[in-house]
């Protein structure tokens, strides 16, 4: 009766776990919502290819790992590398990392460390640059280095208003460019940096086009689809990403003209903020959109914050371009690691106003101290503005799904009531 089976290796087992996590999200996106978008198929297939079948995308290319949003992709592309953002959303890796880091640490950091610890990549980074943004990421860099990976710190200031910080960061970016240039054996030139800035800028302009549609009364694209599109930018071939998004823009134009709405008529419009949704940890965004609300905008480093502000170049000289690139990654950033952080509150209010939001959902990963610490001030500011807000703490584990759903549903229902009362 009991037959002989072969037993998976630990890498195979881990890949199966990740595939199981990935496929459930991809299936939810494919199946759980009305009016699916045809050109989203590219992205569903891409994630399935990479996370269920573990296919490499960049064989033969230099893969430059980045540990946060602040490492300029423009410089990596200019130096002929492929930026791979290693912020990780897998519970499987979170559990592996949990054995190496304190239980109370941020799941994103644990998952990233777990990924390196298992050394199981479809596109393994050849070198990784870690900006010293939050404490946990900074310390994680050193731990990852101990597994035998090359991790280089890129000094990042914790204040952004001062001229000293700006100067410090500009020097940091220059030093990063020099190190990468050496590693790649290639010179950063006026022409390769200019074309990289233009390419990344074009990708951003496409993102802006997508977000414009979300201001419409009938919203033609789900927030979770938007997160998937922006998360794909973490690791996809940029030219393929661009052409897929171009097609998406065309389809959304068509849908907008036909008034296609992925949400219901009464669905509350949510602005999402806090710790970043990173595939496949779409737990909260999925609950929101499965509970008859629609995410119309976000303030997170996996989407809006990553794409919002563009590099503004005055003079197309090499050093001017580097300074402009640096400024974009410092001045425009609304990460809560900064001390004076009124920008973030301003940005959230601005998003609520311009996307006609009915409420804000603020999600912090348990262990992500900066978001946890800042929530009180954000809640107070929203209250002052009369914007309803729900604060949720979660992690990567699938187990709290029932309780979280109840909280989110109750909030969404209260927003619906509010809307009806207004009328």
């Amino acid at each position: 009766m009991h037959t002989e089976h072969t037993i998976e290796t630990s890498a195979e087992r881990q890949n199966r776990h990740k595939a199981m996590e990935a496929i459930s999200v991809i299936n939810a996106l494919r199946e759980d919502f009305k009016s699916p978008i045809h050109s989203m198929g590219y992205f569903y297939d891409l994630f399935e290819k990479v996370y269920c079948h573990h296919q490499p995308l960049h064989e033969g290319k230099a893969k430059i790992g980045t540990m946060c949003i602040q490492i300029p992709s423009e410089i990596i592309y200019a130096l002929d590398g492929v930026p791979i953002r290693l912020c990780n959303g897998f519970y499987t890796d979170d559990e592996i990392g949990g054995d190496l880091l304190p239980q109370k640490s941020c799941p994103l950091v644990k998952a990233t460390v777990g990924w390196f610890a298992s050394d199981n990549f479809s596109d393994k980074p050849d070198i990784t640059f870690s900006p010293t943004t939050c404490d946990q990421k900074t310390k994680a860099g050193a731990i990852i280095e101990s597994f035998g990976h090359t991790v280089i710190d890129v000094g990042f200031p914790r204040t952004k208003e001062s001229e000293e910080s700006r100067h410090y960061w500009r020097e940091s970016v220059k030093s990063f460019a020099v190190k990468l240039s050496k590693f790649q054996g290639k010179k950063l030139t006026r022409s390769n940096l200019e074309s990289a800035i233009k390419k990344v800028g074009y990708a951003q302009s496409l993102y802006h086009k997508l977000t414009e549609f979300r201001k419409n009364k009938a919203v033609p694209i789900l927030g979770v689809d938007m997160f998937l599109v922006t998360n794909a930018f973490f690791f996809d071939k940029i030219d393929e990403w661009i052409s897929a998004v171009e097609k998406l823009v065309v389809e959304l134009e068509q849908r907008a003209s036909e008034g296609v709405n992925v949400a219901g008529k009464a669905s509350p419009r949510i602005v999402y903020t806090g710790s970043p949704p990173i595939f496949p940890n779409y737990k909260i965004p999925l609950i929101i959109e499965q509970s008859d609300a629609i995410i119309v905008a976000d303030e997170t480093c996996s989407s809006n914050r990553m794409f919002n502000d563009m590099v503004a170049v005055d003079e197309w000289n090499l050093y001017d371009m580097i300074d402009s690139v640096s400024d974009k990654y410092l001045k425009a950033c609304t990460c809560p690691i900064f001390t004076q952080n009124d920008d973030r509150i301003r940005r959230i209010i601005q998003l609520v106003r311009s996307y006609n939001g009915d409420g804000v959902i603020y999600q912090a990963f348990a262990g992500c101290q900066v978001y946890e610490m800042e929530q009180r001030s954000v809640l107070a500011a929203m209250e002052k503005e009369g914007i309803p807000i729900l604060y949720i703490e979660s992690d990567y584990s699938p187990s709290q799904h029932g309780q979280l759903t109840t909280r989110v549903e109750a909030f969404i229902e209260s927003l619906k009531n509010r809307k009806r009362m207004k009328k």
Partner: protein
Amino acid sequence: MRYFVGIDIGSTAIKISVADENKNLVGHKISASGSMFYKYAQEALAELLKELGIDESEVVYTVATGYGRKLFKEADENISEITANAIGAQQAAKSYGNIKTIINIGGQDSKAISLDAEGNVVNFAMNDRCAAGTGKFLDVVAMNLEIGVDELSDYHFKSKGTPLSISSTCAVFAESEIIGLLGNNHSVEDIVSGVHYSIAKRIVKLVKRVGVKENVYFDGGPALNDGLVSAIENELGHKIFVPEYPQITTSYGAAVLACDAFLSESAS
């Protein structure tokens, strides 16, 4: 001849084992607990003895175990299923080697037991969340998929895609997850293998709480499901031993204990 009876009254089934003086299994019987399990237990025992041609007077010591053990008043002694399971597993796996870790999935709970070199229970862990990942759960799954519980294994090995995980730890919510997957036209094969892996992941977490030491023994009704066995082996990363009759380990352990108890009593 003198015989020893172990009777295990579980939530789903009554298991009875009869051992001889050498602790060898002479016969066993499994019947549904039903609504009057005291009566059913008595009847089942009488039937089994009749089938084996054993006169009631030849049964010299009876030990009851399982969550209904206290209701079987004829027993000379009763012991917890953890101890009975440990004793039975070691006896049943004698030809295989020294058992160090036991996984037991029953009708309504799952357990991991860790043994020392002498075979004593040093640690054990039990699921703390209702029927998630138990035999009952597999029944519910099979019912929702409109297949027999004994077919689950075949479906598991036919799965070609990625197993579709079930994240709910509650059998009731899991049911709605499965219905959702069916509604979206996923193959029964991928759902079944997903269910098996979801249970296996949960059980392996439980096992890790007591520490995984080889050899690992797996019993309880769900151990008849080869698909689940394979899933647990993959999650653990090594082979597990499943006895010929995985459902009766605990009652067999009770019978072995009955034998030991009787012999030590008569020696004194």
